[in-house]
């Protein structure tokens, strides 16, 4: 009760003066205000949208993302971001983000959720079956070594290491030649 009274800005006004627009009118929360990133950990990252390659600082605490801002030290972006780059925190945290595996069986009219490992097993099965059916070792006595029935699309949004593994497994390992992505000229 006494504390409440002591924090009553009116009394502070009487004690210290002020017209009720200055520090005397500030609440405890305001007086203790800090940026939400205070004391957070920072990871150095790169914007995932276009190819300018703006440097990003990813602020996080206890495994949760707090904010993503430009990296002032980047010689390319100098800490600045465009609207998309500025929205990349929302990109990773928005409610519509997919976090479970969805499966749709033949002729099904709705999704069902299945465990990740089960999905991986089934995908491996499908790849294997299709490869078995459509792999051609030779044609006309000439080496082909090609899996005709499987194709891949995508890569321009992925990491180099990811594209490397994709190309290595699909083309180098499985003989898939139908591999493509957004990149052209």
């Amino acid at each position, binding site marked *: 009760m006494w504390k409440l009274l002591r924090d*009553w*800005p*009116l009394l502070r*006004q009487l004690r210290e003066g002020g*017209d*009720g*627009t200055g520090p*005397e*009118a500030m609440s405890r929360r305001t007086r203790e205000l800090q940026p939400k990133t205070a004391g957070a950990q920072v990871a150095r990252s790169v914007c995932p949208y276009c190819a300018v390659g703006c440097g990003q600082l990813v602020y996080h605490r206890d495994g949760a993302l707090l904010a993503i801002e430009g990296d002032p030290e980047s010689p390319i972006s100098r800490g600045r971001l465009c609207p998309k780059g500025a929205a990349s925190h929302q990109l990773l945290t928005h409610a519509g983000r997919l976090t479970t595996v969805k499966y749709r069986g033949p002729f099904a009219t709705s999704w069902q959720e299945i465990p990740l490992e089960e999905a991986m097993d089934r995908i491996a099965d499908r790849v294997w079956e299709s490869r078995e059916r459509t792999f051609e070792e030779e044609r006309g006595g000439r080496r082909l070594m090609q899996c005709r029935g499987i194709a891949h699309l995508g890569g321009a949004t992925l990491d180099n290491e990811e594209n490397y593994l994709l190309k290595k497994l699909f083309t180098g390992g499985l003989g898939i030649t139908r591999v493509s992505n957004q990149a052209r000229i």
Partner: protein
Amino acid sequence: MRRRPDADSEERLDELRRQGAALGAGGGVLPEAGVRPAGAPMPVASAATGYYGRPLLKEPTWTWEVPLYFFVGGAAGAAAVVGAAARVVGAGDELERDARWVAALGGALSAPLLISDLGRPERFLNMLRVWKPQSPMSVGAWTLTAFGSSAAAAAFAELLGRRGVAPVRLVGDAAGLLAAATGLVMTTYTGVLVGATAIPAWNRSVAVLPVHFAASSLGAAVSLLELLGHDHPALNRLGIAAALVEVATGAVHELDADPAHAPLKQGTSGALVRAGGVLSGPLPLLLRLAGRRRAAAVAALAGSLLTRYGWVAAGHASAREPAVPLQLEAPATGARAKRDPVGR
């Protein structure tokens, strides 16, 4: 893939060539002539229209309770004054008693009205967080607090006073006087509250509004007392005085050509204001001169209430029109509700 244009497209091509020639081609680009041709209106941002005719100001956020409070609080304040005056002159106990009760009930009704208008009603006490004389709203909050409690005290004393306990009467009278003093503020500050804003239709009337609202409140207060059965001639005199002032303020607005005051004369808001003006000015005046006190009272009450709603409505209309605050040549064309000039 080699494509040879066939006959009919050749014709089409010739026709188009003729069009091109007709359009005075050669420059490679069509003349600027048809930049805003009929059939293709485009919103315009310019010194003449402002930014696509969008409002500059935000409309008031007050809900129906606030104009009602202006009415109730004002009437209550005036009643307290009338009651005190009656007491001082000793013009009759019933009148004084009823005036006190009107003031007390009005004061009691005011707080809930204001609180329910708040976006965060649970925080109504914050109104007493600071003392800001530069904020009419702050002045009003403190005034209402003082008025409400003193008026209530006065009425309560009235209740006990009947049993003739002397000190109680003394306290009651003191409270009554305090209620009257704050009542004077209650009847007038709302005019400053509305006038000292960014809304052109309001702030250009700031010098008139307090008088206007005070007269309106007085008219309402005496009318109430009269309807409660009091026929003291003083009430009629006050009613006539109030009506006279209302006639005057009404005239001021009607004669004023300031475009900022258009909302007071045009549209719904104009209709409300004018109706309120007639009901609280000329009409009760004539009725009182004709001795029809009760009819006059009813009219004045209605007028006083309508007036407050009228002024708030005018504020909305005024905020939507950017021409005045932006000093545009003419009223901005196509000013529409926020972010929908497409007109859906």
